[in-house]
């Protein structure tokens, strides 16, 4: 069951940028593209734990700030030669607010414990 919760106004995240979200089970990065789409992914790069929210956002990808691995914001898959994936969470914009599916975040908690 989806349980959308309102996390912040869209304008709090710069276009082609990201901000980090704290959850009980780790940090989630919220990305905003040039076209005002939003995506939520685990903030931690599978390579050496780089903080993805600090990367450069281009098209629908983000490049990790530490060693330039590129991840699809849609699938969380590493692009090109690199192999790895980060978890993604449903996110959307409604009336200028960012909504995230909290059920999914809680779901992860159950799975993790």
């Amino acid at each position, binding site marked *: 069951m989806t349980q959308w919760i309102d996390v912040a106004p869209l304008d*709090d995240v710069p276009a*082609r940028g990201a*901000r980090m979200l704290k959850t009980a089970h780790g940090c989630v990065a919220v990305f905003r593209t*040039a076209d*005002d*789409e939003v995506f939520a992914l685990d903030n931690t790069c599978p390579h050496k734990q780089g903080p993805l929210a600090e990367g*450069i956002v281009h*098209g629908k990808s983000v490049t990790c700030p530490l060693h330039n691995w590129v991840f699809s914001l849609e699938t969380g898959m590493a692009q090109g030669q690199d192999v790895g994936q980060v978890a993604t969470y449903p996110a959307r914009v409604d009336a200028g607010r960012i909504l995230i599916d909290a059920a999914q975040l809680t779901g992860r908690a159950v799975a993790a414990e």
Partner: protein
Amino acid sequence: MSDHLIIIGAGMATGRAIEDLRSAGSDIKITLFNAEPRGNYNRIMLSPVLAGDKTYEEIVTHDDAWYAEHDVTCRFGEKVDAIDREAKTITAANGDVLSYDKLMFGTGSNPFMIPLPGHDLDGVIAYRDLEDTQKMMDLGPDNKCVVIGGGLLGLEAAAGMAARGVDVTVIHIMGHLMERQLDEAAGYLLRKALVDKGITVKCSANSKEILGENGKVRALLLDDGTELPCDLLVMAVGIRPNVKLAQDAGLAVGKGIHVDDQMVTSDPDILAVGECVEHNGAIFGLVAPLYDQAKVAAKTLLGEDATFVQKELSTKLKVTGCDLFSAGDFAEGEGREDIVFRDPARGVYRRLVIENNVIVGAVMYGDTADSNWFFGLIKDKTDIADMRETVIFGPAFQGGAAVDPLSAVAALPRDAEICGCNGICKGEIEDAIAAGSTDLVGIKATTKASASCGTCTGLVEQVLAVTLGDDFVIPAAATVCGCTDMTHEDVRRMIKSQKLTSMNAVWQECGWKTVDGCPTCRPALNFYLLADWPLEYKDDPQSRFINERKHANIQKDGTFSVVPRMWGGITTPDELRAIADAADKYMVPTVKVTGGQRIDLLGVKGEDLPGIWKDLNDAGMVSGYAYSKGLRTVKTCVGTDHCRFGTQDSTGLGIKLEKTLHGAWTPHKLKLGVSGCPRNCAEATCKDIGVICVDSGYQISIGGAAGMDVKETELLVQVPTEDEAILVIKAVSQLYREQAKYLDRIYKWMAKVGLDWIKEQIVDDLDNRAALVDRFELSQTIYRHDPWAEHVKKAETYQPLANLSLEAAE
């Protein structure tokens, strides 16, 4: 006797409903009220009337004879003031009470007026009806007009007036024009076309107040203090459904008058059509859906079944020479992909947004001939899997050609400057080719193009290739990245010679193949633009690597390092105390002295950055830019102040240099050193720029390095005074900023252009030296500041967006 239908509003929607009723043979008695003193005209054609392409008479859709022939009782210039739903009567403005069997709303919408101080002054108008249009037409040539709103209506108003010789300025609050219909790239092209028509366009501009004189508008004041004088001010910022009368009558009203799929309101005897309605949460602002509504409403009145369905909409702008098209949804939603095509030669931009092999949105600029075909693919949800590779080229190209990588250079006009050093334009090179110089060596010999610093070589080769076709093969050169076929040098020349002052301008004019670049090209372009156009271009933090975006060095565990500036490596006990306090307060795990004579606080948490910066700021310290492709440090020795060998005040010069250079962005990091004598304790000869003081003056040498490569500097010039040394260093820094490839340090740049060429620019040509210094200083008026103080003001952006720990734990 037949029923009586009263219609409120003779607009485009109700006009169509009456036509549909009568052509279906209905003989219902119709009385038509309209607040405007006239019947129905084609409102959307007001723009061609304004531009002088049509007359009002030509856009009247229903004239007196038509109404007479179709048996419609007209009460034009009369408003309906009230409705009594119990008694089923309406009250007209003159007090007449008429009874109805059926009532239809078609009251349209009201232009929204921003309640700025002064919005009620004489000469402040909207753009909605013939009266507004007439006021704009009455404005003679050379009068000034400000239009607030860079959407469809505002731009049509602006273009119409500009065509009449009015001096028009458009003020738009968003970053690009028509942001609801266009993406940034198309917005850039549109803006360019409007500027070419003589219209001034200001985006990201906030209006503050409308200033008046004797009750009449005089100027618009922006919140940055700019005053824009005007004789007329047009507000075109949006519309609100006109629902007052319906609300007073107790009908269900949200944003608009609520209607069901049959266009019936909450009262079964009252219908509504047009911009005044709200259907399934949507309101309307274009005529296409209104005509569908009119058809459904007519059928409902005739007792037939019909259902209104919302469809995809498309937009075009009715401004001559601005060929644009936008349809569907080109934002939001997962699983979407873009296909982008840019043809700088023809000023064409196309972008398709694709989801599951179906086109869901399209934006086009420049060539919209195929727009109907694309709109068809969107509406029909056609599966495009089979033509995916070529769909962007339109119907004619299915299976056809790829993009020509030379089109950007082919598009350049003859007077586009290709070689900046020698001022050689494309036309001169073409002429030289025609006269028989068919290779680079020949062009260099005959025109001098690319014979000096050589950075325009790539462009000269492209001109050769465009002119000679297959007879000239371009040697493969490394492009900036996969987004473009151009090299760094090509792009830099294009930015200068074509005056490209925005990222979108570069993407379009250099034929970028991606929507918004990649992490390789974006930081490079951001630097090139800010270096070449310090006033016009605004630095884009989102195109910088994290270190420069957050003004701190990211460490491998995601924490940051903080390095306050110590001018020339000099500090004080008070500063050291403040640093120690900050290190304690923020539990800094490592405090280290750097190779550039600074103190590095390593391991600060991202969230703590604004706090520690504030504490260091309060103690008088500013950011050391230890993370930047910019001036890092000026390392000094103690010089004459303390050393028995010192010949000049090396520490003093180091401090002066650091104070004047700090904040400057450069292609790569820039490190300086000043030693007080040739013993060189400051290791100045392995810096990017080094100064060795001698008895007779200052030896300035450049191109040292002590990184992956180790290089000794080479002497640029010796000058007698400290002031001249500073001027030379500013000039060489600026030349490096203007010419070098991003991520080339001075030694790499010097290897390409040659030390002799640099000497010509700075040592031999004193006018050029002075001009470089001026441009450096101009840029520094914007960039010489402390980023810490600024970021402390937006400390909240360093905190998590939200903390969901509690929610998730439930």
